[in-house]
């Protein structure tokens, strides 16, 4: 939009202005609501909490918020692509680049990750009989770091400098020479800060699962969601360690005059290697927890023990292991040579084997079971065929020679949406409906849930099935338009209609949540006739669960206790619980890193120095006032 003023043309980014207006209006409504209903104490309580359920809830809440934003991005993309030679609003050229960059980055880092981490936070401790995560304080730090990173990344759009080099940030496009704007600095710092949170979370999860299980809950008796969370956490450690260094190097390239990824000596391919050594394990980080959720959901609603439990565990581990040996299949067209391409093609194809094992085990779990088609189960049932289709195109893509044809086309877009939406997002929905009672104490409405499912899945296939064909017809990804003569208009229009159908299905989820909280009744401990320990505690889960502590003697202990009409044995001889506290330090700590990042992005280094000093002060405060002090004093006085 251009406005003539004083004989000059001022161009105003109308998309950014609308976003400001929308945000201010919504913010005003929210503030009025909070004031009227006197919700400040609850907000204050959640800001200081270290309880795993509450932090999980925060992760999920903000995950959904960012889902809306990234979802709107995708609708804008589809509107622009609805007809050939389209000139929708401002989304051509660079604005379109910003659109797919923020859509991709947000969906991966600020939607899928926090939603999964939120579900892990809520469910895993309860499933293994832990009374909280091993380090409750660190858990709060992880969450606030994620939020600080996400807010940083989102802010860039409001200043009309959204990152525009794609979620992969490929060099040399992402270096200072080609994108001198601060947009990609926001990308670097947003991901760096939230990535730090992810690393801390992974450490926390591993220690919790390895050391905080209930007596008798051997690793071989653990439900599959904790299993997949454990292996996912190991992947996070390695993947996010590498990402953080990749971003560190990119930061030096953009701000301090180095040239690792561009110029005569630098190597753009090195960035690709680093990024995909992170990026490929990342997609398994996204999908393995979803596999775990489906395993638990399918077992519960088939009233059967999971089929082939050891094979399930081994295949998760194998997928995780192989996941580190396939990264260069994103780079077949780079020209690494026939040996490298063959190696990475074969390892990629190998991953289909453990994945296939899992698919068959789910089918065999359902076979002969007493199946109840509730909403979570429906999502699990929808997942199996959808994910298989994504897997099949995955094997097609792994054929290095054929990959030259598919590369960077909409065929690839179709493939990864089939795996990430068909796997991760359906898994997140299944988990959300399944554990909703443990989070809030209420069961989401089944009828609305089914509406949500059918609209979402039909919309999904309408959107992405045609992309296989447009991709094979040669439609490149990340390009904002196409011609009538390309003959792909109807397919693209179908995709756009499908995308809006998916978008509208989310309204049913919103309505469902509203309705459930307005009219829903509180449910008991065990609304689904569950099998694992989380259904033995109150809904919503209490701050101090498992008093007394159950003793586990088999897989699905709660189920067999119910079948044999006995109580689960309990014991008073338990390890000490993690020490929970109420503290504002995590929020302040994340805020201080936020301040440092802002200073760095705009090269106002004095702001970074202030932020850094603040970080150090907080670390000192934390070091000198540790929550264990009171605990140790108490113990001391007994001696």
């Amino acid at each position, binding site marked *: 939009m251009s406005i003539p003023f004083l004989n000059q043309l001022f161009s105003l980014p109308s998309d950014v202005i609308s976003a400001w207006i929308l945000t201010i209006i919504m913010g005003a409504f929210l503030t009025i609501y909070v004031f009227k209903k006197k919700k400040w104490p609850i907000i204050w309580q959640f800001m200081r909490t270290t309880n795993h359920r509450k932090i999980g809830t925060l992760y999920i809440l903000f995950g959904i918020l960012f889902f809306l934003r990234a979802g709107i991005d995708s609708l804008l993309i589809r509107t622009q692509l609805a007809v050939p030679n389209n000139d929708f609003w401002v989304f051509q050229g660079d604005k379109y680049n910003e659109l797919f960059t923020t859509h991709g980055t947000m969906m991966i880092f600020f939607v899928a990750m926090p939603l999964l981490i939120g579900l892990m936070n809520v469910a895993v401790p309860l499933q293994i009989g832990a009374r909280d995560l091993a380090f409750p304080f660190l858990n709060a730090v992880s969450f606030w770091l994620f939020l600080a990173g996400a807010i940083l990344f989102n802010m860039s759009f409001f200043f009309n400098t959204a990152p525009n080099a794609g979620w992969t940030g490929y060099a040399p496009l992402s270096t200072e020479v080609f994108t001198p704007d601060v947009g990609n600095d926001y990308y670097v710092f947003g991901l760096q800060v939230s990535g730090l949170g992810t690393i801390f979370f992974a450490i*926390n999860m591993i220690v919790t699962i390895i050391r905080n299980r209930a007596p008798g809950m051997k690793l071989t008796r653990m439900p599959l969601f904790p299993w997949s969370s454990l292996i996912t956490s190991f992947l996070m450690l390695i993947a996010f360690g590498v990402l953080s260094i990749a971003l*560190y190097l990119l930061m030096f390239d953009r701000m301090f005059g*180095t040239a690792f990824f561009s110029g005569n000596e630098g190597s753009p391919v090195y960035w690709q290697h680093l990024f995909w050594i992170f990026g490929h394990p990342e997609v398994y980080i996204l999908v393995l927890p979803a596999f775990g959720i489906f395993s638990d959901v399918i077992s519960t609603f088939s009233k059967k023990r999971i089929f082939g439990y050891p094979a399930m565990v081994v295949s998760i581990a194998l997928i995780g292991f192989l996941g580190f040996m396939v990264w260069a299949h994103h780079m077949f067209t780079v020209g690494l040579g026939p040996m490298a391409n063959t190696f990475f093609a074969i390892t990629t194809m190998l991953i289909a084997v453990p994945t296939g094992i899992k698919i068959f085990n789910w089918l065999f779990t359902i076979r002969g079971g007493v199946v109840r088609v509730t909403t979570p189960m429906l999502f699990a049932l929808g997942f199996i065929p959808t994910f298989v289709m994504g897997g099949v195109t995955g094997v097609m893509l792994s054929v290095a020679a054929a990959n030259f044809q598919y590369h960077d086309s909409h065929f690839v877009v179709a493939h990864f949406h089939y795996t990430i939406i068909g796997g991760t997002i359906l898994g997140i929905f299944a988990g959300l409906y399944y554990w909703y009672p443990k989070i809030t104490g209420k069961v989401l409405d089944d009828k609305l849930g089914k509406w949500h499912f059918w609209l979402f899945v039909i919309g999904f296939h309408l959107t992405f099935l045609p992309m296989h064909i447009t991709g094979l017809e040669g439609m490149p990804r990340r390009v904002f338009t196409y011609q009538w003569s390309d003959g792909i208009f109807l397919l693209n229009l179908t995709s756009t209609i499908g995308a809006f159908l998916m978008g509208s299905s989310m309204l049913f989820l919103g309505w469902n949540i509203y309705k459930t909280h307005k009219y829903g009744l509180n449910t008991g401990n065990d609304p689904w006739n569950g099998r694992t320990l989380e259904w033995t505690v109150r809904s919503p889960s209490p701050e101090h669960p498992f008093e007394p502590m159950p003793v586990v003697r088999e897989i699905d202990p709660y189920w067999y206790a119910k079948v044999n009409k006995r109580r689960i044995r309990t014991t008073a001889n338990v390890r000490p619980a993690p020490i929970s506290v109420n503290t504002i330090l995590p929020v302040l700590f994340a805020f201080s890193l936020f301040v440092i990042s802002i200073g760095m992005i705009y090269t106002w280094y004095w702001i970074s120095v202030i932020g850094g000093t603040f970080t150090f002060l907080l670390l000192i405060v934390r070091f000198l006032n540790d929550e264990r*002090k009171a605990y*140790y*004093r108490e113990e001391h006085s007994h001696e």
Partner: protein
Amino acid sequence: MNEQQAVLFKDRQFGFYIYLFVESIMFATLFATYLIFTPSSGGPEPSEVFEANSVILSSIFLLSSSGTLIIAEKGLKHHQTAKIVVGIGVTLLLGLLFLSLEIHEFYKYAEEGYSIGVNNFLSSFYVLVGLHAAHVMFGICWMILLLIQYTRKIPYGLYTEKQSIFAYYWHFVDVIWVFIVILVYLPYLV
């Protein structure tokens, strides 16, 4: 430390080991970067930049600081204040000496025109050795806080834990330095 405290401490210990594992992944990536880009196709060669004296001297300081830290660790068992305070104090001093040598080295290189953006060998040298130096600096602040804690008479069990966790960190930083000497300096000094 009683049994319950020992369990909570083992949680921390395990968590911190995992953290050091992540750190080693990060340093490994930086070592890879250095090995890929060194020597560079243009600009100064490592052999003209590095000086054996400063490397040997700073190695002596940092490696012996691991030894003096072990004295402090030995003192923990029987609550020997002298060993603890002297051990930590000397380690702190050696760390400071190392750090000032590092800063001096960087400063001298920059004076001679070998700054970070000159070529990719220097870039990857600075991001790696600089990150290590930042770790030493963090460790020095940590030791100062430990000494403050010790004089403030916090429960002794808690102090033991804090010092033990710090010791893991410091030894780790030392091991990274050994790798830096072997992979970064040695091939171009011998």
